[in-house]
């Protein structure tokens, strides 16, 4: 039993290692790093396209600049800083997490939380009233409405 468990564990580890290894190599390659960095930058001559996705000449040249800088040993942070120093923060598709930019990062979560809070509050109130407004036993039905309903039910049974 123990041998079986051990061989299973070895198989599992091998599968993970073989599956992860190529992607680890790829993530570390200059090409992959160029693509990752280009995906963070806005193409200046396109409409809402990243430098990685754009087929424009400008984007191709920007990818070449990124590739060359990485090859020369510059870090992704330095390259990001280079493009920001040339184009401003506008060039980054995701704003940096500082100062006023925090609003862009936090506002969606605040809106979701507030929305969820309102929904929970409304559900709680509805439960408190007795499973919805129609189940409110404190207000008996109108007698004329009850007799009309009974008459219509009898009519339908015929």
């Amino acid at each position, binding site marked *: 039993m123990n041998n079986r468990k051990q061989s299973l564990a070895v198989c599992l580890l091998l599968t993970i290692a073989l599956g992860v290894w190529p992607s680890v190599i790829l993530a570390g390659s200059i090409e992959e790093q160029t693509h990752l960095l280009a995906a963070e930058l806005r193409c200046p001559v396109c409409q809402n396209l990243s430098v990685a996705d754009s087929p424009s000449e400008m984007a191709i*040249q*920007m990818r*070449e*600049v990124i590739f060359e800088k990485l090859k020369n040993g510059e870090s992704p942070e330095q390259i990001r800083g280079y493009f920001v*120093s*040339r*184009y401003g923060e506008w060039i980054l598709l995701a704003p940096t997490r500082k100062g006023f930019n925090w609003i862009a990062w936090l506002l969606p979560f605040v809106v979701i939380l507030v929305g969820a809070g309102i929904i929970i509050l409304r559900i709680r109130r509805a439960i408190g009233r007795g499973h919805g407004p129609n189940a409110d036993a404190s207000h008996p039905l109108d007698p004329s409405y009850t007799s009309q309903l009974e008459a219509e039910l009898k009519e339908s049974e015929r």
Partner: protein
Amino acid sequence: MATWKKLSLLLSIIPLLLLLAYGFKTNPRDVPSPLVGHQAPPFALSMFDGSSNSLEALRGKVVVLNFWASWCYPACYEEAPHLEAAWQTYRDRGVMVIGVDMQDRDTEAKAFIERLKLSFPNGPDPQGKISIDYGIYGVPETFFIRKDGTIHYKHVGALDAKLLKAKIEEML
């Protein structure tokens, strides 16, 4: 609906409307260049006439650095005669006009220079390195560089004679 509910709805809509109004009023191409007020990125350019030029060699001169392309119609065609006129007027007063041709073919670029009879130096930026170094979005764009090498002003779009004269005079 209760008054406080109406009020809170209104209060939440007003900032959104103000944000939208601000967004619609702003020209998306009008992104201020972080380079203005700072040292101009150094460049070396091989001109179409075989000569070469660099910012370093032009230190002490006012530089009008214009980015253009032959396919940029009509803006580049409209402003080129004004650049040529400024070059003729100010070249003896220590002003250098330089054209950087980007994302273009040499034959078309040379035809553009010939057609518009441009005598100020023009050179290609085949790998786009100078254009990216100057944070160019499109053509035409022009940088006005002071004698000390700092960027005085950046203009997006076609230049006219009045603006060219005003900006050069400010730097002299």
